[in-house]
């Protein structure tokens, strides 16, 4: 047997084993901080698995969104709630165990009917994939087939995904983003001065890194046509730079650099840009999101269309991530302020 096959099999088995162990640990542990960290590790393992499967674009997204952004957002949520899960005494353990075992067996039994892993005759490899792989260079003209599929062949689906993220951010704003007093400029200055005194190492290193993170985000955005990357990953990386800035310099300073109205507008403008690209192709006489008519040649049109919709996706994802983070962090800060104000008034009494 070939040594490469053995090593890749060993890697697969080890990664899946680690994922299983992590999942069991997540189910067992009651400390939610540990659970958040473990779920980050789980996502990172998933990303590794995707890299082994040669799905670099998906791995990129998983690492950026699953291990990076969602971990930060979940920690932000924990700041609002308790860090420990209340154990609910459950008398139905035996029944639950039986149900889980039965369903597990049914799933394993069903998996026997599935095509073998990597089987070239599997239905999924014979439906539309041959056309994507053989003709996408002539039809779309992009070296990265994943981007061609994501932004052009499956443009509808991707628009739906962008709208899902937009809706999530709108939901967060509607639930917890409003109704709290924004800090005044004086308080912001006080915050900034406070920060100046401490966290020197963090401040210097983050100042050093943030420009490069932003640059990398832009690279991922515009290089997505040629290599792994695209709007989703770029948006998250770009947002991560601002979230890092917000964590270290305080929310007030972040909001001075990136006001709330700006992220709200960007969030809506991104999906609007995506949908408008489709409408323009409608007006030019083709079907919705058919980019062929956007330029004089079909592939030129595809280039412009994909660039525009990827930019829209990046804008929406970036603004949504920052908005969600600010909503959670702002709420947590407001709660802390309320508590300290209460303590102060109690001290005066």
């Amino acid at each position, binding site marked *: 047997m070939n040594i490469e096959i053995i090593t890749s099999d060993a890697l697969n088995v080890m990664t899946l084993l680690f994922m299983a162990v992590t999942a069991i640990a997540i189910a067992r542990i009651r400390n939610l901080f540990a659970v958040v960290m473990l779920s980050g590790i789980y996502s990172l393992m998933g990303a590794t698995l995707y890299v082994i499967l040669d799905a670099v674009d998906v791995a990129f997204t998983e690492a950026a969104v699953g291990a990076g952004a969602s971990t930060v957002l979940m920690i932000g949520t924990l700041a609002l709630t308790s860090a420990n899960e209340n154990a609910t005494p459950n008398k139905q353990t035996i029944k639950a165990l039986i149900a889980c075992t039965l369903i597990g067996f049914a799933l394993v039994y069903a998996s026997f009917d599935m095509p073998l892993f990597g089987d070239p005759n599997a239905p999924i490899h014979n439906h539309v994939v041959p056309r994507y792989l053989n003709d996408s260079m002539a039809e779309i003209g992009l070296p990265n087939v994943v981007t061609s599929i994501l932004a052009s062949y499956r443009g509808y689906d991707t628009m739906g995904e962008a709208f899902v993220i937009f809706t999530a951010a709108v939901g967060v704003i509607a639930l917890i983003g409003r109704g709290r007093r924004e800090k005044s400029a004086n308080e912001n200055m006080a915050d900034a001065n406070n920060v100046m*005194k*401490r*966290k020197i*190492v*963090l401040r210097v*290193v983050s100042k*050093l*890194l943030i420009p*490069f993170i932003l640059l990398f985000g832009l690279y991922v955005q515009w290089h997505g046509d040629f290599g792994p990357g695209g709007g989703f990953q770029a948006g998250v990386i770009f947002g991560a730079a601002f979230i890092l800035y917000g964590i270290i310099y305080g929310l007030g300073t972040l909001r001075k650099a990136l006001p709330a109205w700006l992220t709200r507008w960007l969030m809506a403008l991104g999906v609007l840009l995506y949908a408008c690209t489709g409408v323009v192709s409608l007006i030019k006489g083709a079907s919705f999101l058919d980019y062929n008519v956007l330029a004089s040649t079909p592939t030129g049109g595809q280039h412009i269309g994909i660039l525009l919709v990827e930019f829209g996706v990046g804008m929406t994802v970036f603004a949504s991530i920052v908005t969600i983070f600010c909503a959670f962090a702002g709420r947590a800060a407001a709660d802390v302020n309320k508590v300290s104000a209460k303590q102060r008034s109690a001290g005066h009494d």
Partner: protein
Amino acid sequence: MDMILDIASWAFISGGIIFCLIGGYGLIKLKDFYARLHAASLIDTFGVGLIFIGLMFQAGFTLVTAKLILILVFIFFTSPTATHALARAAINHDVLPDVDTEEERDLVRQTKTTKSSTS
């Protein structure tokens, strides 16, 4: 020439793996939070660094090596910072190092008072 490169790269990679193993073992075995932190930081400075140098020998003078160097620089900035932030958060939340002598205990108390007065 290839032989020498391979030997060098294997030596570096094995060294990195040994550091990772020591770090992982220390992470489980050591009792004190700060000692564990020290063990963990061993992994992402020495462990990763040596493995990357070994990989650079494999890649030769290519774009891959340039990317590896960039990642290495990035890691050398970020992981000590992360370790520092963790240690700081711990000391701010009254996790004190587990020390043996009275002298060291005094030192810990001093550190704590200076920390709490500046932050």
